[in-house]
């Protein structure tokens, strides 16, 4: 057989990508509900220089298992390397790199906004448009609860910031995959 025959693989045809996807990734991790698991994950991210945009931790339907939902920027980190490193942690049971259009994701945020009498009506109107709830009122401020995609919460923040955003607390996104129509 001659070198370069078609049934062999031409070396010049072998290509690799950069590993960067350029988009936001939502990773959903099922982890054993044991002490120190979050520390192991946080430590891994710190020492490998991976940056988490948001992180949410909570129980699942199984008391022995917790879910960690994190979002990362695939333009900065090779997500493949992140998931492979996470898989090396013995307490990490399962990792799902969710496609945004196949997942339902939500975040909740609380805003404390300055609400002087003259701007109060407008802020309440914003809250209405965003289907947000006013959960606390004082003479000068409102506390508003918003739930939705993190883009929606970003948008709400942009709307109320000019009125005087005193404080904001966000949960980080949680997500689960959408059911297929036949499920």
């Amino acid at each position, binding site marked *: *057989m*001659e*070198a*370069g*025959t078609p*049934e*062999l*693989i*031409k*070396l010049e045809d*072998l*290509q*690799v*990508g*950069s*590993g960067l996807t350029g988009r936001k990734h939502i990773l959903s991790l099922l*982890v*054993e509900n044991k*002490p*120190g698991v979050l*520390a*192991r994950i946080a*430590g891994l991210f710190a*020492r490998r220089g991976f940056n988490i945009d948001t992180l949410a931790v909570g129980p699942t339907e199984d008391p022995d298992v917790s879910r960690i939902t994190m979002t990362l920027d695939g333009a900065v980190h*090779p997500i*493949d*390397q992140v998931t*492979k*490193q996470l*898989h*090396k*942690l*013995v*307490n*990490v*049971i*399962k990792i799902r790199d969710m496609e945004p259009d196949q997942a339902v994701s939500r975040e909740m945020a609380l805003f404390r906004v300055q609400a002087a009498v003259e701007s109060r009506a407008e802020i309440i109107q914003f809250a209405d448009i965003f289907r947000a709830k006013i959960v606390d009122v004082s003479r000068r401020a409102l506390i508003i609860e918003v739930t939705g995609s993190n883009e929606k919460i970003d948008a709400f923040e942009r709307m109320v910031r000019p009125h005087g955003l005193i404080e904001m607390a966000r949960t980080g996104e949680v997500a689960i995959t959408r059911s297929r129509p036949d499920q």
Partner: protein
Amino acid sequence: MRAADAMCEALKAEGVEHVFGIPGGANLPTYDALYDADLIHIQARHEQGAGHAAEGYAKASGRVGVAFATSGPGATNLVTAIADAMMDSVPTVFITGQVRTDLIGTDGFQEADVTGITMPVVKHSFLVTDPRQIPAYINQAFHIASTGRPGPVLVDVPQDLSRADIEYAPAQGPPDLPGYKPPTEGNLKQIRIAAKALANARRPVIYGGGGIVNANASEEFRDFCLSDRLPVTLTVMGLGAFPAPHEQWLGMLGMHGTRTANYAMDNADLIVAVGARFDDRITGKLAEFAPRAKFVHIDIDPAEISKNVPAHIPIVGDAGDVLPKLAREYERLKADPERLDAWWKQIRAWQEEYPLGYEDSEDSEIKPQRMIEALYKVTEGDAIITSDVGQHQMWCAQYYNFSKPRRWINSGGLGTMGFGLPAAIGAKVAKPDETVVCLAGDGSLVMVCQEFATAAVHEIPVKVFLMNNGYMGMVRQWQELFWDGRYKSVEMGDSPDWVKLAEAFGWTGMRCTDKNEIEDAMQTALQAEGPVLLDVQVTKTENCYPMIPAGAAARDMVG
């Protein structure tokens, strides 16, 4: 049964015969259990020594090495050995005592959060919170340490829990861990693609690492390399996985590898990496590493693949499984052997032009390279050699043609000075019938010289051949080459008198200063009973060449 006794039973159930360690307050129950347990305990003189001994034991035998330490400083003294075992993927289990559960978190006497401190440098760790966990955790620790990519596992046992009474039932086989399923078999489709690429490569290089040794796959590796005239190079961790010298052997690659091996990597069109991780000591300047090559990367750890160098053909699996399949698929293609002719011509030209070599002294001065040649001669190339870290390590890697795996035991990843003596003690305990020589550096040996007592008291007849140049030689070399010769804190001075120090510990101490006497001196040391230190005084300021300066590319080697 007392939990500490159950722990010893669980260790025996894993096949443990030897443990290395030091007792202290928090692990007193463990040592009380050892009083009756059928386990041989080697009492080290510093926990770091116990840890490296466990590593040497594991590297020489392939079995899991075990070390014990007490809480607080005992445990923190282990950290260097744990990190070393992590970097070199050494199957080890470290069992530390912890303060009583009611004291945890109170800054109690000798309390240190050792699971926290070691978290970045363990494969996994367990903090016992219920005494009934102890036997199961031991079972899980051994499984995790020894399977997949091996590594260190820590089990931290609070003192009160190891005294508690529990029911002990031996573990039934390996545990089922939901988050731990190490891969074994390589994907056959990928293996076929790799074979087809290799059959088309005109300038291939097979680049092997310590993973081959860990997988006990040296035979499979050799057979694969010999399935054609494939040029072979190995990392410092892989030495012995291919029988050197050999006509297909290019020598070690990397910072102090041969020019031939590094130039071959630089010019290769296809590099097949097996159980190697493209460490910076191999690649030099990453952006200019092997610029013409496509990469097949075979590794049991998926996270190593495309970590530093993107792999065109990734194959996740155990080298022992993948290599025979790859050889079979490759042979089936009946690749044209003549396609490699020009490549071999080029390789032979490099070998001719750049052989490893040094200028011998005209008087009786002992050149360090000459010392390694003598070591090779008197041991007939067949001893277990442990080493410290520095010039002597690199000279040994260059000049001692390791032909079998598990004969070259050194600290490659972490680069731990002082590794050699305790590792030799561990290796000799694991392989009492083999000749075990620690090729030591004088800068390194003094860091662990308390372990002379361990070998003396336990009558472990290791031989330490000290390459004594009076310097931390590699650091001195860097100061000479890259810091304008402004030597700072690299001279060792005249202290200690090594012969007297050895004798003080109950060893035989010898000295050699004449190159014509070195073989005889080594021979005498090897034949003498008990542990022997041979202080070999070598050229003080010899540099280790060739070398790729840090951050430079392979083609820019110097020396």
